[in-house]
């Protein structure tokens, strides 16, 4: 699986993202600078990594969402290509309109950096098929603005369509309905605040994030 890890000024989990993709999704993972107009030929997965693009100025992810490469990322998503946004990447996805809702300041204003438990709510997606429904996994979070918000109609639609794929067991940031990760209507775009790419080796404290990459690999093979 060929992965493009997009780098914005201020991305700081780009190395983790590339490492996880190289480790679990085979060769072909590479960085792509945000000023590029297009994605590398044959890109299967676009990985929008965590970090603090543009120093979180204006709003988290707002300026990155309007950078040149995002036109190509949108076109990739419209073609049904896979897009994974983690932490700041999730903020970029909501700011660019690829996923609904918004991420606002954590309920208690603290930057939170610790492992949390997530419940896998939907295993019928390309990102979660290697998990079992209701499985609880341990994955770290590291964010100050991860409080998921959307208007009540949007939240009802997400819940009704099974688009909430990960939910916090102990909601750390005030997110509506304990939402930790959602997929797009077509299921090919996933945004989540926790970092699965930081939980892919026992050395890192948890291997529970591997399931997400194993799912993607399986999805591509069966395509």
């Amino acid at each position, binding site marked *: 699986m060929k992965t493009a890890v997009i780098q914005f000024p201020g991305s700081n989990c780009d190395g983790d993202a590339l490492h996880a993709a190289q480790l679990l999704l085979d060769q072909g993972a590479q960085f792509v600078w945000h000023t590029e107009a297009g994605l590398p030929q044959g890109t299967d997965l676009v990985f929008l990594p965590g970090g603090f693009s543009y120093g979180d100025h*204006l709003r988290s992810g*707002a300026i990155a969402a309007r950078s040149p490469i995002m036109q190509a990322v949108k076109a990739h998503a419209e073609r049904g290509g896979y897009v994974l946004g983690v932490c700041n990447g999730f903020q970029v996805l909501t700011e660019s309109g690829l996923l609904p809702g918004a991420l*606002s300041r954590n309920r208690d*204003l603290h930057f939170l950096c610790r492992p949390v438990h997530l419940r896998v709510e939907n295993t019928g997606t390309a990102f979660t098929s290697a998990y079992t429904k209701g499985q609880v996994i341990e994955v770290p979070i590291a964010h100050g603005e991860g409080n998921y918000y959307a208007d009540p109609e949007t939240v009802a639609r997400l819940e009704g369509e099974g688009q909430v794929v990960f939910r916090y067991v102990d909601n750390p940031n005030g997110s509506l309905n304990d939402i930790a990760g959602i997929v797009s209507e077509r299921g090919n775009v996933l945004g989540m605040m926790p970092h699965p790419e930081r939980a892919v080796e026992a050395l890192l404290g948890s291997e529970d994030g591997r399931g997400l990459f194993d799912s993607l690999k399986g999805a591509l093979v069966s395509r």
Partner: protein
Amino acid sequence: MSTFKAKVFVTLKPSILDPQGRTVERALSHLDHGNVGGVRVGKYIELTLSGSRAEVEAQLKDITESVLSNPVMEDARWEISEQQGEERVGA
């Protein structure tokens, strides 16, 4: 062609929890200003634009709604005034 100065005010929607505002409100209460409520913390953005008034107003509305604020969680309003010649600043 004229030059206009715009002020854009962005605040979280009333339905969105504003933890920053609540923290300030609590601090004021501890400082014996218990009669102060409804504190909301927002952003203030200044811009200068040049063009005709109609063009600039349309552009400002677009910038405000598409970049400077996120309509999912924020409300925004703006004020605009024409700059009269060179601005003189005294010391």
